[in-house]
């Protein structure tokens, strides 16, 4: 079948900005986007520039934007893409500096991975818990499958507006070390991720989970890091207070109290209180803020809800089987 590929071209020596060019090619059933790009380079346009190596979805070098979504070109077949979108548009990964055509600068990405110390500081072998060691592989939650292709960072809606964010790939890797029973610096690692750019910067948009070609689920890893932080007593960041306050409000009232929640999250940080007060007042005037200390704010079925909290607490206190 004859397919038109709309490919983004950009040559820094001459082009002021990127533009799209159409390329036509006859392709057979099962042809991947990468195979088509290689043929286009050999047969049509020798200047067409892109990265690839293994052609087997394991090296991670051919991640690019295909019809607006971050994918590995070697793992993406043309026909289903056409059926899904009616066209083939190919561009470079977002959120990373463009070098040429489909090639982006990966240095900022590697920098983030490096920033979380991607190696282990092992405990002496006799201190490693053998039971945890037996289950360690499962505890990694598949983050060890990461091939560092950069698709998640290109799709990350926080990284798009805040380049200081460590990003999904680096944090997923950090989780791999926190979950490793041989690691000796777990609390140092968790401490390091509490500040700006760390785990509390994730907005939980699920984009990284959706685009990851290896099902690493980076956002789940970030949530696991948040849980580990709270359980280890790191409960004073506004991010962790958001979680603990939310849970407390649901236990007491069954439903979120939008008047009370901001005060519980912000606490006595007066600067932040003054930041939210003007908006709170405007919302109040529009009838959008429920009075925070309503009499009988709880939902009618609150007794059952509290009983579930109680049952859950008891289940957690039982010794593990």
């Amino acid at each position, binding site marked *: 079948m004859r397919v038109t590929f709309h490919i983004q071209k950009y040559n820094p020596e001459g082009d002021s900005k990127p533009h799209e060019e159409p390329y036509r090619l006859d392709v057979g059933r099962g042809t991947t986007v990468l195979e088509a790009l290689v043929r286009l380079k050999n047969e049509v346009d020798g200047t067409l520039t892109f990265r690839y190596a293994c052609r087997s979805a394991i090296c991670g070098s051919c991640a690019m934007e295909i019809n607006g979504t971050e994918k590995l070109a070697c793992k993406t077949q043309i026909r289903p893409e056409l059926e899904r979108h009616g066209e083939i548009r190919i561009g470079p990964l977002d959120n990373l500096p463009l070098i040429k055509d489909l090639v982006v600068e990966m240095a900022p990405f590697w920098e983030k991975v490096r920033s979380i110390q991607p190696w282990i500081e092992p405990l002496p072998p006799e201190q490693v818990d053998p039971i945890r060691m037996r289950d360690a592989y499962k505890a990694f939650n598949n983050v060890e499958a990461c091939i560092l292709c950069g698709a998640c960072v290109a799709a990350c809606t926080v990284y*798009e507006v805040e380049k200081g964010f460590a990003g999904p790939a680096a944090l997923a890797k950090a989780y791999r070390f926190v979950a490793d029973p041989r690691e000796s610096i777990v609390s140092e690692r968790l401490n390091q991720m509490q500040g700006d750019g760390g785990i509390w910067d994730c*907005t939980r948009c699920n984009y990284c989970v959706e685009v990851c070609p290896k099902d690493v689920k980076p956002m789940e890893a970030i949530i696991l890091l948040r849980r580990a932080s709270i359980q280890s007593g790191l409960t004073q960041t506004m*991010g962790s207070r958001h979680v603990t306050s939310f849970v407390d409000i*649901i236990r007491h009232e069954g439903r979120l109290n939008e008047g009370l929640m901001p005060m519980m999250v912000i606490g006595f940080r007066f600067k932040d209180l003054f930041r939210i007060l003007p908006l709170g007042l405007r919302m109040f005037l529009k009838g959008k803020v429920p009075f925070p200390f309503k009499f009988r704010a709880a939902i009618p079925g*609150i007794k059952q809800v509290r009983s579930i909290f109680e049952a859950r607490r008891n289940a957690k206190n039982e010794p593990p089987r």
Partner: protein
Amino acid sequence: MKYALYTGCAAKGACPELYQSTTLITKRLGIEVVEMINAACCGAGVITEADPDLALAINARTFAQAEALGLDIMTICGTCQGVMGMANHRLKTEEGLLDRINALLAPEGIRYGGEVQVKHLLWIIVGEIGVEALQQHVTRPLENLRIAPFYGCYILRPSKYLGFDDPENPVSLEKLISALSAHPVDYEGRTKCCGFPLVLEKEPIAIGMVGANLKEAKEELADAMVTPCPLCHMNLDIYQGRAEDKIGEKLGLPILHLPQLVGLAMGFSPKELGMTRHLVPTDKVVEKIQLKV
């Protein structure tokens, strides 16, 4: 057509206009609803950060209530839909999970059998009632309006737990907008995040997202934005002023809840639909369809 209506917290708290407008349009569309007044918060993906089993148990209780009524659940919040849809999918498919969660409900004599479906109002209108039938109810075609659809994260992702729209190329809001004779605006931000989950603790990031999404929609000459998620509505509406300060540009883009847009086309007045409660004035939209507030 009858559903158990799960309002979620926002429609009963900071977005009463969502509840108001939902009531009007469901009646007009012939959807009979039984409101689940005993149901608790879905957890919004926050409770699960502390304790996933607790979040599942609270949702299983809600599902059991609908099961007792013999009804499927209708949500009106994208976040509720995502969280409850995922919980329900997991409870139905993961081996042993339903039993483990039912054990937490047992002291109150509650048991979820795994028979309920959870659907967003948008999906019910587009997937079950159908856009042709919706058009029958349009008495005031929104011909002059360019509407930017803003899906919000949880109604699209993770798609393996949701499965209504294609997360790469969703069409349900566009179909709905077209059925009301308005013009859907195409822009990149339509599937992105509004930033609401970060707004209390990381306001600069959250308003950065608001600014970026609204700016793209404005550049495509949108008159208003419509969203099926009240949390997106809150961030895009309430924090729009601060986003304007950040990007140094006036935006003034009215944000409508899904049932408000539908309600406008059905002939309800902006006041009936609660449009006077927004922080960003909706006058321009109203003027464009030649109405007085």
